């Protein structure tokens, strides 16, 4: 219990002025009585009687019920409260005690009330029926004695204070819960926005990643196309010139033949034809021309292959799940990626028998491409500056209901320390500007969206194998299974 000095306001409602004086004598006087001290100490839970009385009373008088209502109303408007009121039961000509009490509680429900009654105007049960079961109501019989009034006043003042503190505490608690709830709602709303932003970001990143690889591929493909175009047109130029020479040789020989058939002297013409033949270097031509023709066709074939693969790789209709020949997808992907690895590695395809797979082939191609590019980087780290070359093996197989694509390299391997980070977005070991650090993160998310997995095994110094596993039946089938 607190011993803080406190003054409680007490309202006396009685039509008899003498009663007001009595209350004043009992409550307003400084408590000097030792018995009273002891009593008060007991009431307030103090251990000894040495502590001075902690509650004093300020008395306010009203002589009629209406006047009491006005005072309590004014008090509340001023931001103050009466702790308790002593109310007479009979106060002619105005409201009686019960009516006064009902009015007082309507204004201030916390007010503690003592009814002072000379005789039983109402029975206790009648009172209860009128005001309800209230714990803020006591009855003392007139004539009352001083100790009784003091006990009532102190007990009710303490009770009022406790109730007030409890209410403050409760209000505070409620306010804190409200503010906490509001904070949580705000946090929830922020989270929802962030989730949406994240989803947007992920789709942006996928696009960025796709554009990055398309940009990288476009450069590689430019090289892949420019090179065969260079030698095919060089060789075709040679063929054109060779034919010009050969036609001259043939024309010379035809002239000789005609002269011979017609019975003319053909020696001079034959000499000219032989000279033309020597000029044309016929033995070389006989050897070079068929090869050159093959080379032109081979160069055009290379161009056609890469253009076809590019079409398969980047076909716009691949955003939807469709029945896919996985082996053909793999072939196209490694064809467009050729320029990424050809300077550091040879690539071997080991394509197994895989039934048609339901997948978004564009995304799967993208994931395979990322793995092939990573494999060539891992090899490049090892062979760069040497004459050695690595090997990349891309294989496909069916494993029950699953289609598997694995990409193995004999490169540097993935150090233990970063194995748990390689799928993190933005994690990269490559030089700034070489990659966004999105390749593996997006590959994994793409495979996950198919209901599949992307895993790897790696030995430092020996190489790494990544394996894509996706359900042959497609992403939807897996969702149904899991449900």
């Amino acid at each position: 219990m607190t011993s803080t000095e406190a003054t409680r306001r007490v309202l006396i409602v009685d039509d008899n002025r003498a009663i007001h004086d009595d209350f004043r004598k009992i409550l307003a006087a400084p408590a000097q009585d030792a018995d009273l001290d002891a009593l008060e100490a007991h009431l307030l839970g103090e251990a000894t009687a040495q502590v001075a009385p902690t509650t004093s009373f300020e008395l306010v008088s009203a002589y009629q019920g209406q006047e009491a209502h006005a005072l309590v109303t004014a008090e509340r408007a001023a931001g103050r409260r009466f702790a308790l009121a002593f109310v007479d039961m009979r106060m002619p000509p105005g409201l009686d005690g019960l009516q006064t009490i009902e009015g007082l509680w309507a204004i201030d429900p916390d007010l503690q009330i003592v009814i002072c009654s000379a005789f039983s105007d109402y029975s206790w049960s009648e009172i209860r029926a009128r005001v309800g079961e209230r714990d803020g109501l006591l009855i003392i019989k007139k004539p009352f004695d001083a100790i009784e009034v003091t006990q009532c006043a102190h007990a009710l003042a303490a009770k009022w204070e406790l109730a007030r503190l409890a209410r403050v505490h409760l209000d505070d608690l409620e306010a804190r819960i409200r503010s906490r709830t509001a904070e949580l709602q705000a946090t929830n709303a922020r989270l929802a926005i962030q989730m949406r932003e994240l989803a947007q970001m992920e789709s942006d990143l996928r696009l960025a990643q796709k554009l990055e690889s398309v940009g990288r591929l476009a450069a590689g493909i430019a090289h892949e196309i420019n090179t065969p175009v260079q030698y095919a047109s060089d060789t075709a130029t040679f063929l054109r010139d060779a034919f010009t020479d050969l036609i001259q040789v043939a024309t010379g020989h035809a002239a000789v033949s005609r002269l011979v058939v017609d019975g003319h002297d053909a020696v001079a013409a034959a000499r000219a034809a032989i000279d033309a033949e020597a000029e044309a270097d016929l033995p070389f031509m006989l050897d070079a021309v068929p090869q050159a023709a093959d080379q032109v066709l081979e160069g055009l074939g290379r161009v056609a292959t890469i253009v076809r693969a590019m079409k398969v790789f980047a076909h716009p209709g691949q955003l939807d799940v469709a029945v896919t020949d996985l082996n053909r997808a793999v072939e196209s992907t490694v064809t467009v990626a050729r320029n990424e690895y050809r300077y550091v590695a040879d690539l071997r395809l080991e394509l197994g028998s895989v039934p048609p797979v339901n997948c978004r082939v564009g995304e799967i191609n993208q994931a395979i491409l990322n793995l092939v590019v990573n494999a060539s980087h891992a090899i490049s780290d090892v062979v760069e500056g040497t004459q050695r070359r690595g090997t990349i093996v891309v294989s496909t197989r069916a494993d029950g209901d699953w289609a598997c694509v694995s990409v193995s390299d004999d490169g540097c391997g993935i150090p233990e320390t970063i194995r748990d980070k390689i799928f993190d977005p933005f994690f990269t070991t490559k030089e700034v500007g070489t990659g966004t650090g999105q390749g593996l993160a997006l590959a994994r998310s793409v495979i996950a969206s198919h209901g599949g997995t992307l895993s790897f095994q790696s030995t430092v110094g020996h190489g790494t194998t990544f394996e894509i596993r996706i359900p042959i039946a497609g992403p939807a089938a897996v969702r149904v299974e899991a449900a």
Partner: protein
Amino acid sequence: VTGKARVLFVDDDEAVLKGLRLVTRGLRARWEMEFVTGGVDALSAMRIRRFDVVVSDLRMPGMDGAALLDRVHAEFPSTVRIVLSGYAEPDVLERARRVAHTMLAKPCAHLELCAAIERSMG
């Protein structure tokens, strides 16, 4: 023994070299040509015999074209350096530009290539 210009072609793609060999055949009376598939072979050839012109691809395994021309510039400063490239990363291109006299893009018409080589020999 001859007044022929000596030209060295460097490309990792044999097919490109074959094409060049065929298309420059008509010039064999004026040029003496060699064809090698990499930077290391190119430097070996140049250490055996003088070349007036070296025509090199850029993207090649091991030593790339820019590195080769850089070495040629240092060891054989009088040799004219020509790039004939289908594509190269920006940094390789930049390095190549600093040491090449002429940059040609594949596909390059043989007349243009031959003119560039002829021009370089004055």
